[in-house]
């Protein structure tokens, strides 16, 4: 750090303290009480000396945070495994989603075919998050290394799709895949009701439902959706 004056040393210290989350230029200004022009000059200086670098945050794409040159940016800044270069990878998530679901589905199928007593059947249709993680790793569809938490977020989206249910059981500390003494188990399920009656009528899906009344421009007697639907 030869050749830098006290101000640069101060700014460098502040950035170092921010660790791998990085710090925004305005925050540097608050902490050091230096005027904006000075800060910008110092930051440019430090960057050219390859002591710090700027990383674009995924949360607010205009914001740049500064951190030490050789630090790996934290997940909250880059977005983790699901973001590559600030872009959310939807297809990657979709593919993982489908693969996990297929795995759980086949497990449930085999359990049902075995026709043993119901307790065993149900218990064998469960898969722990660790099992799913191993399966996905072995499949090798991911270029990025995925952790068990990543797989759990994918499995959670399956729960929100209504295709999978989860239970938590207490497990001994030593067993594979247990976190803090409990394990999460997942199981493929089917929905409890078939698509409901309302959506089988054209009115259930109609976009102009609120404008429709007898004698108006849009009415049941001249509804084009109904005409189409009655053609079948």
């Amino acid at each position: 750090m030869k050749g830098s004056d006290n101000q640069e040393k101060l700014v460098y210290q502040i950035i170092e303290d921010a660790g791998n989350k990085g710090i925004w230029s305005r925050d540097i200004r608050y902490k050091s009480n230096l005027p904006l022009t000075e800060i910008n000059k110092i930051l440019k200086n430090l960057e050219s000396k390859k002591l710090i670098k700027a990383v674009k945050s995924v949360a607010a794409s205009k914001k740049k945070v500064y951190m030490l040159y050789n630090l790996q940016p934290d997940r909250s800044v880059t977005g983790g495994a699901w973001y590559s270069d600030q872009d959310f990878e939807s297809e990657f998530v979709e593919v993982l989603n489908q693969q996990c679901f297929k795995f759980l589905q086949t497990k449930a199928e085999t359990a049902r075919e075995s026709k043993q007593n119901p307790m065993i059947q149900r218990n064998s249709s469960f898969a722990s998050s660790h099992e799913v993680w191993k399966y996905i790793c072995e499949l090798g569809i991911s270029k990025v290394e995925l952790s068990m938490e990543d797989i759990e977020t994918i499995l959670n989206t399956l729960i929100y799709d209504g295709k999978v249910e989860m239970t938590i059981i207490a497990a001994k500390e030593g067993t594979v895949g247990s976190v803090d003494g409990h394990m999460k188990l997942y199981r493929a399920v089917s929905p409890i009701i078939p698509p409901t009656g309302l959506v089988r009528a054209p009115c259930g899906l109609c976009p102009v439902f609120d404008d429709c009344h007898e004698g108006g421009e849009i009415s049941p007697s001249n509804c084009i959706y109904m005409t189409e639907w009655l053609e079948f």
Partner: protein
Amino acid sequence: MTQAEIKLCSLLLQEHFGEIVEKIGVHLIRTGSQPLRVIAHDTGTSLDQVKKALCVLIQHNLVIYQVHKRGVVEYEAQCHRVLRMLRYPRYIYTAKTLYSDTGELIVEELLLNGKMTMSAVVKKVADRLTETMEDGKTMDYAEVSNTFVRLVDTHFVQRCPLVPATENSDTGPPPPAPTLVISEKDMYLVPKLSLIGKGKRRRSSDEDATGEPKAKRPKQTTDNKEPIPDDGIYWQANLDRFHQHFRDQAIVSAVANRMDQTSSEIVRTMLRMSEVTTPSGAPFTQPLSSNEIFRSLPVGYNISKQVLDQYLTLLADDPLEFVGKSGDSGGGMYVINLHKALGSLATATLESVVQERFGSRCARIFRLVLQKKHLEQKQVEDFAMIPAKEAKDMLYKMLSENFISLQEIPKTPDHAPSRTFYLYTVNILSAARMLLHRCYKSVANLIERRQFETKENKLDACEIQVDETIFLLESYIESTMKRQ
């Protein structure tokens, strides 16, 4: 009563009873309870016609009357009862599945005529059944009576309230309208009748000669001159019991979808055992011990007691929470959580509608907000793993259709938007009501289109399907209101 409901009632009344009854009925629904003269004056119909229309409506339990002070009788329409007319085909079909053709015709006659005496029902049904049988065979009254008694025993048919028998008839002029009473134990009491006879086939020669029907008619009326033994005891269909049956069906099929056939059979047995012991609005059934359930399983099902216990434990542990364990005596006491079951079914209906209307990604967001109760915009994107732009778009779409609502939590007293938390949340009760209203309007639209087209088949079936959604949502709303 909302506009959509009034429109639907008017369409139903018009189809079943005609213009005049429709006019009077809709007027009463709109304005609440009114005396006779006011009705005649406001609708501009003659007093005579109003009386006849009211007779029809009262006969079918669509209008009730009350004597107020100063001797004025006011008539009030039961809007929800009119809406039940949409469900008549389902009631008749249920009777058919449970009690075969005889039961079907009994329930059909009762629904079409409002109230009838037992002998009249038996005679009419026997006649109708005889017509459909082969030549030479007739339907015996005894068989029809048996089915009737079975329907009463399972509470599908009940007695109508009667005029109470007054011993002292000299207490002054009779009141302008009798107050009808029925005691709980009399409701399902079948009078001892010995109905002997066989169904009469309508002679086909009636249609040939024009002179002959006139001669035959006086002969038939003389047959009916004999006094009817159960005059004054009228029967009506017990719609609440049918609704209970539909609710049980929905629960059983939900369990079958989520678990397997055997579990659903066990749940069906438990529900059948609590049919007559649990009042219709109760949130839980009576506790049933595992031994009792084992004894009441249907004959064909031979699973061992151990396996039954395992199934019951699995049912009680399932995240669905339809079955709960309430104690350990008698091998384990289990109850069915009816309110929770209706809630799950209503939620599943809402999810299904969101999925069909907006797509599966929207459904994912909807279920996410449902499970987590309150979420911020950013959290929704993170949990659902949907890009921010799309997630925002979907949330706003659902917000505009009132499936999701916003909860504001201000950080500062001045509620400045930049310093307020906005949380998305789903209020199931209000979403259910909104959807119910939409269902009513949809059915009204379908009926109108059907009348316009005169093509019947597809639309009738569709009305019945929409009615299934109506039933689930209404039961859930009723059950929630009772608990508050």
